[in-house]
């Protein structure tokens, strides 16, 4: 049975969420809410805390402190109901490469208790969409990197979740497939009202599809708003420029490049609070 949000409030809500590994705070006291039917882009440099946040929201990891709800359910205390509410396309590969594409899809269908006739229909539709239908009986280990990624996406969409987590879904995809994917996600979002929580390093994608963007850096959310609002606030002409202005131009795992940037980040955080 599909769990339904009874509160009518935010589909995803995090309050003072923190995840600490030893002395390192991967996620530091973040709070945000994602409305029903919203496409929410969670952006940040490598190691900023995006995947850790997704892991906590999707019950793969418990927070050190803070609370969260998913479709009204607590992913820590009510894992089954929370898991019933979402689908996910992971950043890293998560297919069984010894199985065929079709078998991977069927396995997912059984795990999500999709009735068999619906399952077969949707598997065909999604594999056709991702242009994998002709190779559905090939073992996944014989697929190219791009084909594996497309299969991961098809699998994530199989059970029509209420919330869809996409952790860098277009990594390794060509522009044609990326275009096809975002078109389909938009359609799902508009027709089925699916709430989308996505991370990506391709800023034009986020700019194109996201209603709201939150930027995370060093485990803290440093700004949020619509892509246009972010660009306006930072005086940038695009989301990418705004992102660089917010997070600096140094390669990650280093501190902000100049005192001016540090001061800028401090002031922005103050303003957000």
């Amino acid at each position, binding site marked *: 049975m599909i769990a339904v949000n009874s509160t009518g409030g935010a589909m995803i809500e995090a309050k003072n969420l923190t995840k600490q590994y030893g002395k390192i705070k991967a996620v530091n006291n973040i709070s945000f809410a994602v409305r029903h039917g919203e496409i929410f882009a969670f952006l940040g440099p490598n190691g900023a805390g995006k995947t850790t946040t997704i892991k906590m929201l999707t019950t*793969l990891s418990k927070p050190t402190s803070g609370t969260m709800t998913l479709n009204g359910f607590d992913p820590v205390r009510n894992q089954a109901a929370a898991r019933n509410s979402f689908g996910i396309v*992971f950043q890293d590969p998560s297919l069984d490469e010894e*199985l065929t594409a079709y078998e991977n899809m069927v396995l997912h269908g059984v795990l999500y208790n999709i009735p068999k006739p619906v399952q077969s229909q949707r598997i065909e539709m999604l594999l056709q969409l991702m242009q994998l239908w002709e190779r559905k009986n090939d073992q996944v280990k014989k697929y190219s990197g791009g084909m594996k990624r497309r299969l991961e996406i098809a699998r994530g969409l199989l059970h029509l979740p209420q919330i869809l987590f996409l952790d860098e879904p277009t990594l390794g995809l060509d522009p044609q497939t990326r275009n096809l994917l975002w078109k389909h996600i938009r359609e799902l979002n508009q027709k089925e009202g699916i709430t989308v929580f996505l991370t990506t390093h391709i800023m034009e994608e986020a700019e194109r599809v996201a209603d709201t963007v939150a930027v995370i850096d060093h485990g803290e959310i440093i700004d949020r708003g619509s892509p246009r609002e972010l660009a306006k606030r930072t005086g940038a002409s695009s989301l990418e420029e705004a992102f660089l202005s917010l997070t600096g131009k140094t390669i990650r795992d280093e501190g902000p490049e100049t005192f001016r940037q540090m001061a800028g980040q401090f002031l922005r955080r103050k303003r957000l609070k």
Partner: protein
Amino acid sequence: MKVIYILWLRQLKRYFRSKSRIIGALGQPLLFLFALGFGFGPVFEQAGEGNYLQFLVPGIIAMSILFTSMFNGIEIIWDRQFGFLKETLVAPVSRVNIMLGRTLGGATVAIFQGIIILAISILIGFRFVSPAGLPLALLFMFLIALLFTALGTAIASVLEDMHGFQLIMNFLVMPLFFLSGALFPIENLPAGVNALVQLNPLSYGVDGLRGSLIGLFQLGLLTNIAVLVSCGLVLVTIGAYLFSRIEV
């Protein structure tokens, strides 16, 4: 039930599609069977203990099942490293069912491996006393396989990567095998070694297989079943608990 079945089926498909894995897993048991079976056979007979091949085959079947079961349990580490584990952990199904599906699948694969060893043994001269003993032998194969797949699952649930694998092979699996009476009769052993053999659940599996295949029970049929069932239940429970707490 559907979840248990599909995960059981997955293990079987992975096994039958990997010819190198099937052949590779036979290597060590066959080496023991040929080297020890034909090497020590004459000495064993001169000591008045009868045909060593007859004595050894049930032990080698148990060895094959032990190794394959532990390996299948530990496969969780691979799934954790190569990502598939996440797919099952975020699914809205009980983790106990996931663990059971995997464990039963791993146990079934181990039984197949045991059956292959039995078939090869028959080809080189092993004879079981009665066909009626075969279903009982299959029961013992299942109990050994379930117990050690669950043990492998429990261990793999707390291991982050493959670095601990060699440690487990050297300090757990090999001692379990050598102290099970698989290679030598357990009567007349020194008291300390005998105590270890009695504490080792695999001893009861080896004895059960030997009893059902060649009619030689040293620990008793019911004792063997009781020990294997109770140890199996405890390890499946511990494995399920630890599996349900996995974080990635």
